[in-house]
């Protein structure tokens, strides 16, 4: 970019997201996850009777998992992957097809499907890195991938059920199909993802992520192999998406192109993270909860729901660069500090 003359010159790095360091001590680092897990574990006690509500709760957890994965890919390394749904869809469709049509055991199907999703995500990262694709081009290429996947599924009707969707036989009769059990399974997955996220943050990988987010050039000069770390993020995030998609297929019993569509998944994940904060540990979880509640309220609005989401996207990204919750948290912290210093000044 040519030299800026504005007095509002801002660093081009970290366009969205945080660069704070995670807490050093083990307990401080991981207790938020434990608490979150414990709190969420109580939900079935409250909603367990309604199959409908539990179904929605499971969905919310699934999206939470997606959001964490996106957080790893985009929040950590600024790779705009607009194919979150598609990568999960790879996991979902591959596992379903392998288990049903190829009659492989579910565990094998799961592993293979996850591997496929991981490989594809890693490939996308690798391409973006090798060709030095910026945000826009990465976004377009991944969007192209996402839409191509959707069209592929629609086109290969015999294999995938096309537009009408695929009934997944694998998993029938197992605990996976019971909503409460499924809830705990996905909660476990969510907690594992959170732990992985935190562990990454605290590792040398996380240090590299922060460095390259702050200033890619400086990181390179400091010896950080930006390319490699970007690909790591792509691989890890895609693996998360693949697993989630695969387990979802087995657990829900029905998948269709709209389950994993861009308009359904990616947009929702974006809004969720706009609320909860990109790059933060619990941002995805906060976003999940807020969104689930919001969705419930808007259920009667029909198409106007889309309007509300659009307005939310506009308002959130205009107002809060790092997400609504971090902004509010910042504000609170500042208020507390002001109050403390005022109290301190009193004789």
């Amino acid at each position, binding site marked *: 970019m040519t*030299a800026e*003359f504005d*007095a509002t*010159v801002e660093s081009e790095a970290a366009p969205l997201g945080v660069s704070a360091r995670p807490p050093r001590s083990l307990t401080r680092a991981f207790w938020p996850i434990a608490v979150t897990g414990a709190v969420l574990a109580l939900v079935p006690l409250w909603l367990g009777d309604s199959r409908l509500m539990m179904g929605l709760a499971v969905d919310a957890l699934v999206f939470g998992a997606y959001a964490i994965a996106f957080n790893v890919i985009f929040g950590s390394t600024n790779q705009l992957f607009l194919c979150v749904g598609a990568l999960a869809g790879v996991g979902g469709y591959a596992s379903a097809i392998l288990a049903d049509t190829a009659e492989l055991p579910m565990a094998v199907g799961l592993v293979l499907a996850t591997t496929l999703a991981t490989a594809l995500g890693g490939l996308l990262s690798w391409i973006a890195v090798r060709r030095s694709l910026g945000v826009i081009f990465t976004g377009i290429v991944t969007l192209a991938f996402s839409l191509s996947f959707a069209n592929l599924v629609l086109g290969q009707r015999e294999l995938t059920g096309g537009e009408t969707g695929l009934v997944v036989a694998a998993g029938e009769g197992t605990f996976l199909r019971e909503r409460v059990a499924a809830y705990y399974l996905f909660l476990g997955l969510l907690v594992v993802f959170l732990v992985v996220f935190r562990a990454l943050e605290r590792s040398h990988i996380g240090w590299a992520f922060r460095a390259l987010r702050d200033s890619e050039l400086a990181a390179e000069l400091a010896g950080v192999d930006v390319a490699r770390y970007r690909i790591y993020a792509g691989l890890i995030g895609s693996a998360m998406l693949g697993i989630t998609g695969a387990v979802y297929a087995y657990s829900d019993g029905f998948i269709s192109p709209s389950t994993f569509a861009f308009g359904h998944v990616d947009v929702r994940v974006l809004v969720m993270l706009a609320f909860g904060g990109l790059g933060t540990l619990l941002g995805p979880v906060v976003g999940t909860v807020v969104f689930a509640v919001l969705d419930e309220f808007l259920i009667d609005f029909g198409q106007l729901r889309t309007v509300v989401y659009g307005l939310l996207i506009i308002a959130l990204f205009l107002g809060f660069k790092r997400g609504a919750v971090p902004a509010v948290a910042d504000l609170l912290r500042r208020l507390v500090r002001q109050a403390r210093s005022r109290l301190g000044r009193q004789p």
Partner: protein
Amino acid sequence: MLEASGLAAGYLGKNVVEGVDMQVAAGRAVAVIGSNGAGKTTLFRALCGMLPVSAGRVRFDGEDITGRPAHRVARAGLAYVPAERHLFPGMSVRENLLLGAYPGRPDPSAFELVLDLFPRLKERHKQPAGSLSGGEQQMLAVGRALMSRPRLLMLDEPTTGLAPKLARSAYQALQTLKEAGVTLLVAEQQVPLALSLADRGYVLETGRIRLEGASEDLERNPEVRRAYLGVA
């Protein structure tokens, strides 16, 4: 013609130049000299509206133009040629010149003036500006600024990237312009060249005017000689 009083400007809330008082009389040439980082570019950007002014006023021909956006300052008759030139690389020499006359239609005599001054541009008039050499780009940048028949021409380090011979011929061109009645304001690190053209000079150091005076006086000033003319 151009007057700055108490001018201050900078980036990200910090002032780079402060308390600048300057006058450029019509038909004269004024040089602003100073080393790298002294704030010459910041000052010029503030004068022509490319950078917001944090304090002070700028008056052009009696009119207060402080804070006026750059494109309106350009239309008022103040043409600025920055060090980076900012030509339109994919457009031909001819198109660059045509745009110099924006928003009006280009005056054929303006074209003639420019091409007489820089005959090399005539040869290359269909070539894209991005393919020109450094010296030719500088000529084009100045030529483009002249197309609007400005009353004041501001040039920021016009000799950047030019070999000494080209730098001298650039200043010869500026001398011709001065004789034709164009008011000039030049920022320069190459002090001898600048003072040879200018009637008055201002020495800028760490954002403030350190010295000012007629260029002969500045040339003889021992501090100036020591700092900028490499004479012990």
